[in-house]
Each structure stands twice: as structure tokens, then as C-alpha cells.
């Protein structure tokens, strides 16, 4: 192994190495860390973020950014709670992901027809979506104390939270989509070299719209898990989630320049952030250091991936 190879290996699997190191450290420092209960709780708490980060992976591979998924999450939260209270709880759970899909589709249309960078377009649409969510909920909490609504976020199947099952299923479907289908191939090519993709007869706008629609759907799906768990729909739900999702994707090692990446990486990124959080809770360290540490970890991850981009 030459030094370059070692470095390349470290760069490729940095996130997994960090996870392993952190798990060993936390197990040594606290008895309550390495328990099935604690680990399952971590997964349960982070399932919504993991679902959003999985879909964000597609958006970033296709060469975009979606800063509106937090706002779509808010729309999903308000829409599902409102429908649950006023129409039917099951309909609320069922429809919110499709509300997300529609909003994501609108994002894609805005980006491709106006030809603006997704970064700008989704800042604008985030404000619009958030505004609609505030207007719909009248700025208040919509409380839904119905078992027909809360089963999704609180219940378990075969001893494991429903949210974890949903997360695993969603990540597997996206992985399949990305690695085994022609759609996935097109996603990589659009992000890797859009001009080459166009000249290969690919309708690149459709691919971009689809990626943003999937990200919207994921935000809607994530929102029903959280909303049904806390039994409250509100327009401030999901604030900052878009940045956490993007941070997790980058932390996992997906290239911010597009064209390269994988869903498992984003899951690992979410898990790494969650472990840091969990560690601070278990060891009850001042939360100030938590943000500081997270920031340093993300900076290190971005720096590490940038080293490979040079030359």
C-alpha cells in the first residue's frame, strides 16, 4: 500500500472509520451507550432526518441543493395534522408525502424553467412553502390526539419502531433506484457532466425535476413520522432540517460537485451526527461544545473531500 492508496482508502471510508472510533470511545466511557435500547432510540429519533438525507443525496448527485425540504416538512406537518383533525387521520398520513412530492415537483419546475441555480430557487420556494404552512395553521399548533394518527410515529413492528422500518425501506428503494436503474444512471450523468448527458439524448430537466420531487416526497414522509410521534402539527417543525440533511450528505462523502455519491453514505453521515449528539447527552457535557464539535467534524469532512478534488 502506497501512501496515496492509504489516503484514498481513508477518504473513501472516513465516515465509517469515524463511526467505529466514536462507538468504541462511547462504549468505553459510558455503560449506557452500547445497549440495544439506546441504539434503537438513536435510529428512531433520526429516522426522519435519515429519510430526508437519503433523498437529498439524489439532489446533490444531480448537481443541486435543496434548501426547501425543511419548509416542505413544515407543510407536511401542518397538512397531515389538519387533514387528520378535519377529515380523516389515515388520509392525513397518506396524503402528506404526496403534498411533499407536489412541492418538490414545483421546485424542479422552477429550477428548470427559470434556469436559476437550485440554491437560489429553493431559498425562495422555502419562504413560500413556509408562508403557506403558517397561513394554513394560522400560526398555531394543530394537536392531533388520535390513536389512528399517532400509531405511525409511536408504534413498533416486530419490536422495532415503525419509523426505522420506513427509513430502511426508503433507503433501500433509493439505493436500488440509484444503482440499478436507468434513472439512477441518468442522475449520475447529469450531475457529472450535464452537457455530455444532453448530447447523449438525456432529457436532463426531467431528471432534475424527478430528483427534487423525490426530495419533496421524502420531506413529506419524514414529516408524518415526526408529526404523528409528537401528535402536533406546526409550521415551525422542520426548521433547520435542510441544513442538517445537507451536512449529513456531505459528511458521508458524497461529492458536493455532483456526479458521485451513495445513499448509504448519507445514512452514515446522519448516524455520525447522531452519535456525537448522543455522546454529549450520555456524558452530559455542556451543549455549547456539541455545536462546536459538530461544526469541526463537518469542516474536517469538507476539507478531506476537497483534498481529493485538487490536482
Amino acid at each position, binding site marked *: 500500500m*502506497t501512501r496515496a492508496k492509504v489516503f484514498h482508502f481513508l477518504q473513501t471510508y472516513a465516515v465509517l472509520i469515524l463511526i467505529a472510533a466514536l462507538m468504541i470511545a462511547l462504549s468505553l466511557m459510558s455503560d449506557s451507550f452500547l445497549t440495544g435500547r439506546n441504539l434503537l432510540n438513536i435510529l428512531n429519533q433520526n429516522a426522519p432526518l435519515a429519510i430526508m438525507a437519503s433523498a437529498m443525496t439524489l439532489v446533490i448527485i444531480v448537481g443541486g441543493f435543496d434548501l426547501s425540504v425543511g419548509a416542505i416538512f413544515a407543510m407536511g406537518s401542518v397538512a397531515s395534522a389538519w387533514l387528520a383533525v378535519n377529515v380523516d387521520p389515515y388520509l392525513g398520513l397518506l396524503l402528506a408525502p404526496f403534498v411533499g412530492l407536489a412541492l418538490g415537483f414545483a421546485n424542479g419546475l422552477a429550477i428548470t424553467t427559470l434556469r436559476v441555480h437550485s440554491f437560489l430557487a429553493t431559498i425562495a420556494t422555502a419562504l413560500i412553502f413556509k408562508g403557506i404552512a403558517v397561513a394554513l395553521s394560522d400560526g398555531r399548533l394543530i394537536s392531533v390526539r388520535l390513536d389512528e394518527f399517532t400509531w405511525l410515529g409511536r408504534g413498533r413492528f416486530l419490536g422495532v419502531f415503525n419509523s426505522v422500518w420506513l427509513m430502511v425501506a426508503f433507503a433501500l428503494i433509493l439505493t436500488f433506484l440509484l444503482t440499478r*436503474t436507468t434513472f439512477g444512471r*441518468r442522475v449520475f450523468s447529469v450531475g457529472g457532466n450535464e452537457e455530455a448527458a444532453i448530447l447523449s*439524448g438525456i432529457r436532463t430537466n426531467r431528471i432534475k425535476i424527478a430528483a427534487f420531487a423525490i426530495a419533496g416526497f421524502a420531506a413529506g414522509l419524514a414529516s408524518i413520522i415526526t408529526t404523528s410521534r409528537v401528535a402536533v402539527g406546526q409550521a415551525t417543525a422542520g426548521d433547520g432540517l435542510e441544513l442538517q440533511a445537507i451536512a449529513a450528505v456531505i459528511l458521508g462523502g458524497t461529492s458536493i460537485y455532483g456526479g458521485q455519491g451513495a445513499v448509504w453514505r448519507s445514512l452514515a453521515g446522519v448516524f455520525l451526527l447522531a452519535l456525537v449528539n448522543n455522546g454529549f447527552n450520555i456524558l452530559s457535557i455542556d451543549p455549547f461544545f456539541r455545536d462546536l464539535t459538530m461544526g469541526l467534524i463537518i469542516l474536517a469532512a469538507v476539507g478531506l473531500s476537497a483534498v481529493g478534488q485538487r490536482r
Partner: protein
Amino acid sequence: MSAAPLLSVRGIGVRFGDVDVLSGIDLDIRPGEVHGLIGENGAGKSSLGKVLGGYYRASSGEISVEGRPQNRWDTPAALDAGVAIMHQELQLVPALTVAQNVFLGLEEHRHGILRGTEAARLEVLMGQSGLRLDPHATAASLTIAEQQKIEILRALARQARVIVMDEPTAALSKSEIVQLHRIMRALRDEGRSVIYVTHFLNDVLDVADRITVLRNGKKVRTGDTANETRETLVSAMLGSTKTDTLYPPKSRDHGEVVLSVQDLTSPNGTAVQRLEIRAGEVVGFAGLMGAGRSEIARAIIGADPASGEVAVSGRVLMDRSIAAATEAGIVMVPEDRRGQGLVISSPVRANISLPHLGAISARGIMANARERALALGLIDQLDIRPAMVDGDVSNYSGGNQQKVLLGKWLAGNPKVLILDEPSRGVDVGARETIHREIGRLASEGVAILVISSEIDEVLGLATRVFLVDRGRLVDEIDPDEVGEAEVLAALFHHQSVGETAA
């Protein structure tokens, strides 16, 4: 020779990862010489130029300036020692003026406040060197040849005694090349040295005093230009005695009309009244830079909006999208390999299959075995190296990348193949493979259109050649009757006639 070397290197080696790009290079640059650095693509000529200019760090070996060994050799150190490098991609600030670019980092100031003396200083510098530019023009508004003059002036402003020029003529017209050579000679006559990295043999033979030939990262020899010819250089580059690239025999046995284009016009200037290519026929487009050759090709395949009629084997294309053209069997290998052709972040397999995903999938799910078989067949057919279906194209040499790109478009068994600059920036070996493949495809009945800035290539491959000017086919010539010089003269003639008419 009595003159001591201005810049000399001993045992220079450069490693990128596991690959030795250069090894054991000894080289002396004398004061007042134009020193040509040539070799196939991937031979290391550009890397050596970059090491000399301080842009790449050598992994081994030593560099000395006027006999003094240098322990630190990066761009600032090289500039201090009087060695400047002019990159192939020019390093200018487009929004700044000529004068501001020339004196970038050397501005006269008082406590950080600019004194605005750049234009006046540039006048002095231009007077000394004889290079003339408008000091107040912004760099972005100038042609590449003029921008190169800025780079040369910039080197002179830094008292450079050695200027490394990395492939400076790649984007220049013939007359601009002549002018650049004149500048090089003038620099030499002042006692400065120019290291001229290029893959155009005629250019080095024209201007260089001595030529160093590299092969596979090693130096073959350094010799006086007077003792070299095209043939000796090519054989040194290739390692075996071999004359210049031979073109494949031309197929004269043409079948039915396969591609037929009528009244094709596009907003970016294409106006082709009629173009027909028969099965097995190779048609060429020759034209000057910016003559609109690529635009015609793009209009034909539907990459740019265009009106008019395009038919394949008598069937008129109704849907003018690229996907429909590919489906109908018309494909184009684009000119810009990295910009328009390959997805550098994807492996060889994925690049080759990209336009054919529909054919190697069932209900949207990829058939991986079929994809690998497809890629493997083309790797074999085109002798792509390294021969790995999962190979990382970003690490491939220019020639092998070009073969991957060609393979990508051959994978669908096209009826009409348009090649835009099929051998731009590739080594002699890859060029031969590509030409042989063009000949073979023609003999199998594919209708081929070759577009190339190298007139020699168009004449060598095609049986009919059109001269292109401003998006129009202005003349048709028989490549067996007309020579390169005559074609060039005709192109300049059409260009000037067109200009006065316009």
C-alpha cells in the same frame, strides 16, 4: 557551445499516485534558445514543462539555475529565478485590463493605495519588446492570441529569462502561430530562452533551436533541430521507425444515400442547402476556426434548434431531439472530450452505455451483464487501455479517453457517424487506431462525416471535402486532387470574400 546552461535539471522524476509520469530526466536550457519539448500524449512533455516552471513539484532530482542548485522550486521561487510559465489555460483575470493583468501583483502603490501607473509602465514594456496591445482593453475582450501576449508581457514584467509555453498554439489560427513564432525568435535574440511544449511537429521544426523528445516519461534525446526531420522525430516519439500516420485506404464503393439534409438553417448561422452522404462514404468538412462546422453537425443531430429536413435512409426525422436522432442511427462524437463527451466521474462502462440505456435495460432496470459485455466488446475493438470495464476514465490518457468517447457512440451501431475533431489532443498511436476504425466503419457501410481543424486529416480520410465558411458549404473539392496549402488558401479566400460581402 560555450554558454553555460541557464536552467538545468538532473534526474528529475514525478510520481502521481502509483504512476511515474517522469523519471530520470536530465536537461539543460541554454540562454537564448528556443527549446522544443515534444512527445506523444502522456509522454510527460507537459509535466516536464510544469516542473521547469515550478508548477509541479518533482518527486526526485535537482534543479539548478546558472549552476546554483535550488532547494525550493515552486512558482514564486521560479519567478524569482527568472523562470515563468504560460499555461495552456491562460491565467488571466478576464475583467481586468491588459495593463492590470500584466502588472498583477507588481502594482506600484503607496501604503496600499494604487498609483495607477500600470498603463504607462506597460507602454515602456511594449516599446522594449515590440509586443503591441491596447493597455485599457479588458482581457476578456481579446482573442486567445492576444491574451497570450499579455502572458508573455507579464513574464517580461517579472524579468523572466526563461518562459515555458505549454501547448500555446492549440487554439491559434495559422497566421497567429506564425506571429507567435516571430515573438519567440525575438525573445531568443534578446538572450531569453523559450521552452516550447507542443505536439505540432511542424511548429517545433519551424522555430526551435534544439528539440528534446520524451517517450513514456523518459528522455529519448536532445538534438539540434537542424539534424531532425518530421520522420526522425516521429520515430523517436514512437520508439520504432515509423513514418507519419498513414491513413486507411479509402473506400470508393458507395451504396445508397443514408444521410440526406435539405435547407437546414439554425439561429447560430447554419445554412446548408443540401448535403448527402452515401453508405460507406467519408465526407469531410474543412474550415477555419469559427467557420460553423460544429454548428452544422449540432443542427443535424438536433443538439441545437434548427429548421429544415434531415432524413436517414429516406425516412425524414419528425422528432428533432438527440434521442430520436440516436434512435434513427445518426450520432455525433463531439469535439470537446471532457466538456461535452465524457462523464469524468463515471467509469468506462457507464460512459459507453450512456446513450444506449434503453437498449440495455428492461423496464428501467439495468441489465449489468449486457452493459459489461457491450463495454468489453468496444474496449477490445478500439484497444482501450487500461482494458477495464470499471476503469476510472479521469485517469486515462487523452488518446484512451477519446477511444472511450468513440466507443460510446459506436455502441449503438450507427448508420451515420459524425466525428468532430476525432483526434484532437491524442497521441499518434490512438490517432492511428481511430483512423483505422473510421476506415473499417466506412467499409462496413456506415456514412461518415469528419470535421477537423487539421486539413491534412480531412484530406487523408474523406473522398469528398466541403469547405465551410459561416455555416455554409461554400465549395466542394476532391481531396485527391487538391493539397493542404490550396485548401487553406481557398478557406482564407472565402473568409475574406464573405467579409467584404457582409
